[in-house]
């Protein structure tokens, strides 16, 4: 008799579930000490389902295949001087932000999933978390590898890990993950596995990566899609854990809803960075941030929450505010960075006429009315040799750590401020969403490491901004920072392509 091959379900059962055992001489609560303190009630871990039924042997096989494809493209990109084929050098600034702001989060996710993968009592959840942890480690490695090629030809990449832990705007994504990793294991899963992976990462890894392809960046689109192919599995894990928690006990529903509210809002705030990458940093544009938001949050997220309604789960609180913000988010965020480009390790610029027209077309309700006049004014100042840099340090939101530059949605000319007083001290927030998060866990957020406060308290190595940037952040001043126009990046780009700026031509003519 020939042995028949086991089917997928049986293989998964044998190679996953059967790896578990009963604890005969240890108390189960000592083995899994973090399973109860968050108030989540699990009655039967065997109800956990992994819809992909992926076993470790298949995992290694297909991940190896993905890696081979990926590295073939990295090699081709490097061998063929791919850096010269991007649409224009301004684009590379989005990649600088990616390496300093996003890739270290992959490393944090690797740590986080390794941790929670140890803490769950169910073997199905443990195996899925283990695979996700390995995926995240792969992502950070492949991203550093892909972008190391850009580091040879452009400024601002050299100290990404050092910068991630210190620089003011990188403290936005860093504190997001610190917050998730210092929560309990179930909150981490709802935060990262569900709210971030399922509801929001598509916005980063799908339309932005498609945009990278459209701008000739073969390396980035490839690591992006390769990472997102793992994300498809992570999203599914996130959805499964939500369904599992909601089915296990009705007491879990309000806890999960609160986490969804919190992490949806934390996530949308962090994605403000992606909104400006899409609308301002891709010279060839595929779709606007607003369009991407409509497809990947309103449509896909809407379908998801409709599906979860049977458990009593509702759309995240402040989804309405986030939807209204799609008209404003990228413009307001780009304005903040334009103001503070002297303190950033990447370049900004004012959009040219053609780009402004595209923004007017994509944002007919807001761009011409609120943002175009401001940008034209800044462009005039720049032409007059007075490029505007904001010399003060901004107040930061205690929760999301973004400078307080977002406005009320019913009045886009009025900056949104919220405050709470806790133990006699006043704390400031950019929104109702961020204030609610603080008010529910003030003991956690009073400890926020706010970059501006730290600078003023003298904890960042210097008494003036220049010293902080140079010595504490390790930025090469006049090289990594300031406007793209006139930067060494721009000069090199023009040399490669034998382009002459109008200014150079004038100089030579005289």
């Amino acid at each position, binding site marked *: 008799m020939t042995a028949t091959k086991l089917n997928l379900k049986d293989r998964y059962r044998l190679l996953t579930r059967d790896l578990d055992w009963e604890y005969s001489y240890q108390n189960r609560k000592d083995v899994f000490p973090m399973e109860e303190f968050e108030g989540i009630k699990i009655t039967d871990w065997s109800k956990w389902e992994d819809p992909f039924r992926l076993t470790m042997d298949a995992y290694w096989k297909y991940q190896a295949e993905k890696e081979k494809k990926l590295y073939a493209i990295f090699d081709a990109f490097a061998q063929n001087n791919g850096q010269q084929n991007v649409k224009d050098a301004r684009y590379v600034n989005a990649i600088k932000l990616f390496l300093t702001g996003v890739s270290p989060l992959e490393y944090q996710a690797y740590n986080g999933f390794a941790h929670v993968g140890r803490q769950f009592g169910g073997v199905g959840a443990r195996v899925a978390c283990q695979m996700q942890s390995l995926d995240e480690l792969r992502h950070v490695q492949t991203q550093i590898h892909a972008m190391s090629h850009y580091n040879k030809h452009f400024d601002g990449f050299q100290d990404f890990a050092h910068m991630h832990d210190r620089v003011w705007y990188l403290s936005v994504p860093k504190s997001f993950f610190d917050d998730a990793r210092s929560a309990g294991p179930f909150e981490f899963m709802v935060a990262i596995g569900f709210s971030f992976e399922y509801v929001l990462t598509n916005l980063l890894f799908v339309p932005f990566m498609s945009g990278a392809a459209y701008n000739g960046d073969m390396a980035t689109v490839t690591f992006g899609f390769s990472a997102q192919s793992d994300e498809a599995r992570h999203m*599914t894990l996130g959805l499964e854990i939500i369904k599992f928690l909601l089915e296990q006990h009705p007491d879990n529903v309000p806890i999960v809803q609160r986490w969804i509210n919190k992490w949806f809002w934390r996530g949308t705030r962090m994605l403000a960075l992606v909104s400006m990458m899409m609308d301002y940093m891709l010279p060839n544009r595929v779709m606007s941030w607003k369009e991407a938001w409509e497809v990947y949050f309103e449509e896909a997220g809407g379908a998801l929450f*409709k599906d979860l309604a049977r458990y009593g789960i509702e759309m995240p609180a402040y989804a309405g505010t986030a939807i209204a913000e799609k008209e404003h988010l990228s413009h307001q965020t780009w304005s903040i960075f334009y103001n503070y480009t002297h303190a950033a390790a990447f370049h900004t610029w004012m959009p040219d006429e053609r780009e402004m027209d595209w923004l007017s077309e994509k944002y007919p309700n807001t761009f011409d009315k609120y943002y175009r006049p401001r940008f034209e004014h800044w462009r005039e100042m720049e032409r007059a040799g007075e490029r505007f840099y904001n010399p003060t340090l901004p107040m930061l939101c205690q929760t999301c750590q973004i400078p307080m530059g977002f406005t009320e949605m019913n009045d886009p000319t009025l900056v949104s401020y919220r405050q709470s007083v806790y133990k006699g001290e006043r704390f400031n927030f950019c929104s109702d969403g961020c204030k609610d998060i603080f008010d529910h866990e003030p003991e956690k957020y009073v400890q926020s490491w706010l970059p501006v406060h730290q600078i003023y308290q003298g904890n960042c190595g210097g008494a003036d901004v220049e010293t902080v940037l140079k010595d504490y952040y390790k930025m090469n001043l006049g090289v990594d920072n300031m406007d793209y126009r006139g930067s060494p990046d721009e000069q090199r780009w023009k040399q490669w392509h034998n382009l002459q700026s109008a200014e150079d031509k004038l100089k030579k003519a005289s």
Partner: protein
Amino acid sequence: MSKVYIALQDNEESHYIVEAIEEDNPDATVIYQPAMIRIENEGFLAVKRETVEEKMGRDWEVQALHVNLITLGGNVDETDDALTLTWNQ
């Protein structure tokens, strides 16, 4: 009914998979975007091994879909014969 969706990298292998999906899900909408192909359908979508094998002219495991997969939306069920995506509402 909400739309489920799947996005694949735009490459040779995916073209066969997309052909198979189109055949098995005649109402699905196929959208070509830079470097990717997005397929969406009301409530349900299936990628069937048998049809993909017929298009490719060789054996193909459903799990090999992950190599070209970018993202998906919907409740997933994967067996030896198919990957399906569904929304209940």
